[in-house]
């Protein structure tokens, strides 16, 4: 196994995640979005497994397995069922159009590269490239959260953000506690999903009803 190939494959997988992040931004159907997310998680899982392999760090396989089982299968399925039950699977209400969002996303990728590139060459190139991709994924996830009105799609945004974090964490060679952290994070996500399930009334974070807002915030006029 040459150094080059290891690098290329990691690079490819990380790049794939960025692409899939764009795909998430592009989706305007709920079911499509969930499928794209499952794919996102799958690529992550593969990437983590590859990192486990090339870093010779078996504990990372745990992370990869979690990613695969939990994020690529359980959560998309659960969310899918919620979506179907709430009957909101058709459209995703966006705040700004898909086009401008994608353009802005491209800008974000540029920004991530711009801030990561000056990293001195002595840090290894793999980490650096990986990091730029991970940062892009994080920023795109955040962008998704704020450009979607629908709670489920916001959750998907958050989870893709988290995938970016795991990508970065596993890319950092020899980082301790990665498994623990990824488990902790999965718990967080589980909570969020449970929250969505429990409080179905809040299928929208975003409401235009001012009266509702006032009463929600206890600042009744």
């Amino acid at each position, binding site marked *: 196994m040459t150094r080059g190939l290891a690098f290329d494959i990691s690079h490819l997988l990380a790049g794939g995640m960025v692409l899939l992040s764009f795909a998430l931004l592009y989706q305007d159907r709920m079911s499509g979005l969930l499928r794209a997310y499952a794919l996102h998680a799958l690529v992550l899982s593969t990437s983590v497994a590859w990192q486990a392999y090339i870093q010779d760090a078996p504990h990372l396989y745990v992370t990869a397995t979690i990613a695969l089982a939990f994020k690529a299968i359980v959560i998309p399925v659960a969310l899918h069922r919620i979506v179907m039950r709430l009957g909101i699977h058709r459209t995703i209400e966006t705040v700004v159009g898909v086009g401008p969002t994608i353009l802005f996303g491209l800008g974000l990728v540029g920004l991530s590269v711009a*801030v990561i590139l000056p990293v001195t060459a002595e840090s290894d190139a793999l980490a650096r490239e990986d990091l730029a991709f991970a940062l892009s994924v994080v*920023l795109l996830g*955040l*962008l998704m*959260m*704020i450009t979607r009105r629908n709670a489920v799609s916001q959750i998907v945004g958050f989870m893709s953000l988290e995938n970016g974090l795991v990508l970065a964490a596993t890319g950092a060679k020899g980082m301790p506690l990665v498994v623990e952290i990824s488990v902790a994070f999965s718990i967080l996500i589980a909570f969020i999903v449970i929250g969505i399930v429990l409080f179905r009334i809040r299928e929208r*974070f975003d409401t235009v009803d001012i009266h509702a807002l*006032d009463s929600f915030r206890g600042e009744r006029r």
Partner: protein
Amino acid sequence: MLTAAGAAIFLLLVLGLCGPLHGRLPAWTMQADRLAYGGAMAACFVLMSVGLATLSGAGDGDTLTATLPIGLPWVGAHFRLDALSAFFMVVVNLGGLLASLYGLGYGAHEREPARVLGFFTPYLAGLNLVLLADDAFSFLLCWEFMSLASWLLVLVNHRDPECRHAAYVYIVMASIGTFCLLLAFGLMAGPDGGYGFTAMRASALDPGLEAVVLFLVLAGAGSKAGLVPLHAWLPLAHPAAPSHVSALMSGVMTKVAIYGFVRIVFDLLGGPAWWWGLVVLLLGGLTAFMGVLYALMQQDLKRLLAYSTVENVGVVFVGLGLALAFQAQGMNVAAALSLSAGLLHVLNHSLFKSLLFFGAGAVLVATGERDLDRLGGLIHRMPRTAILFLIGCAAISALPPLNGFVSEWLIFQAILLSPQLPDWALRFAVPATGAVLALSAALVATTFVKAFGVAFLGRPRSAEAEAAHEVDHWQGAAMTALAALCLAIGVLPALFLDLLAPVTQALAGASVDRQAGLPWLTLIPIAEARSSYNGILLLLFILFSSIVPALVIHRFATRATRRAAIWDCGFPQADPATQYTSASFAQPLRRVFGTLVFHARERVDMPLPGEVRAARFNVDLRDLAWELCYAPVARAVEFAAGRLNHLQFLTVRRYLSLVFGALVLLLLVLAIWQ
């Protein structure tokens, strides 16, 4: 001596417990109010004695210092008793002593005495501590503590919304002032935190920074003292407190503010630049003039007195400004004269303003009224209060041979030394300020003719005024003591001027010649050929030339007197409402200055013949300082608060957008910075 002072101050602090204890002490002990006021009198007496002892014995120039291991940890709390502190201690504690005496009687009329008792003595302690503090932290701590205590005292009548408003404006202004002083100290201490006054005295600042300090102190101490245009809180807050507290606030706390100014500008900063005097002088003149005009227009007796405080502070600042101007030219004797004049006015004002506030408090107790237009004829029902109040009015109007005249006369003497100043601006400004001061002095007389005339003379304008009764002996005694002091200083100014010699010696490097040894106790501030004044002789002359004719007439002409109905040019009006009111008394001068200074507008609504409705007359007066300085700030804060308030009602998504925005912004900054 510092130990005695410390013990007295500690006693004052402890006596604050009388507030919560009020009504809870066992019957056989002294009641809490007696305990508090009595204790305060004792403590003030001790502190005043310490001050007097220091002043009279401080000729050898040594000052007492003490450092306590409290306060700012690595600095410690420094206290220092020098001539300046001692002089102000005399002023403060004389006021405190008599206010406590007055409180013994006045306090019985409080609705909730506990609210006064709890803060009255700590307030006195705060006033004293400011004078003793010798490092920036202790100074500001005590300064702000003083504000805090007085704020709570203003809130005594907390059920009255106006009172709450006054208290609010007061505490916010006090805080602004404190921050100004804090910034000034920050500059003087430098980034390494040389907070001790000793260190500040030793270190020299860049002239530009010194100028900044001057303005900050003018804003900080000036706002507390009531310098125009920062005075607007003062006429709200001072009258709102119980009268003996009003007397302390007006008569004493403004003096502590002046102390702060003198301490920082004369003592801690280096030598003044020539234009400092100009700035202080002009501000003082403006304050004096505006203060008295506002006072003249007031209808509320206590508010009138509060505005008059603004005027007197202006007079003091004129004295201080002159001192700075002379000092900048190295004319130390002239500076000493100006400073003495200003400081003597500090003492004088504390006396007659306390007297007047006590009188107003007596009227309030007797009638429940502060509104001049509901008073009248009190001279018949409150004879003792009337004559004492009259003495106060005469003193504040600078009538010889009372004390107000002496300090005013000294300031005029200082102004007349101004031709020796080399700067053109000052040469023009000083006489112009003199003219303004003369105008203010004349207006003060008008104001107090109005105050006394409308409240005490004439016929009662309301049932309350008709049913008034004389106040008790505690209050009477306090007022009598003050009136006697007013007369004493007026008649024997030389003795009191000598007390100031160590103060000016320390601050201006010179002092007015010793006066006490001169024949007939004449006051000769500079040279005999130049000017002199003798209060005793003048008093004797006036008494002689008034009493002798009276005796002669009564002996040789006739002493027959007949009481008859009012003549009034043959058309006597039975209704007391036909008397001149405070507004009508002020009307001629309102016409002269009103449109310019107050944007005054008079509206007459006269019914046509045959209509039965009442005629109405309305006067709108606008306080420009309020409208130009205070209101815009309040509006701006209100506007910004209203705009930003939308941020409380966003959705989670929008809040996330804010986070995202912050992140992108910081990343951009990072990208550009690299």
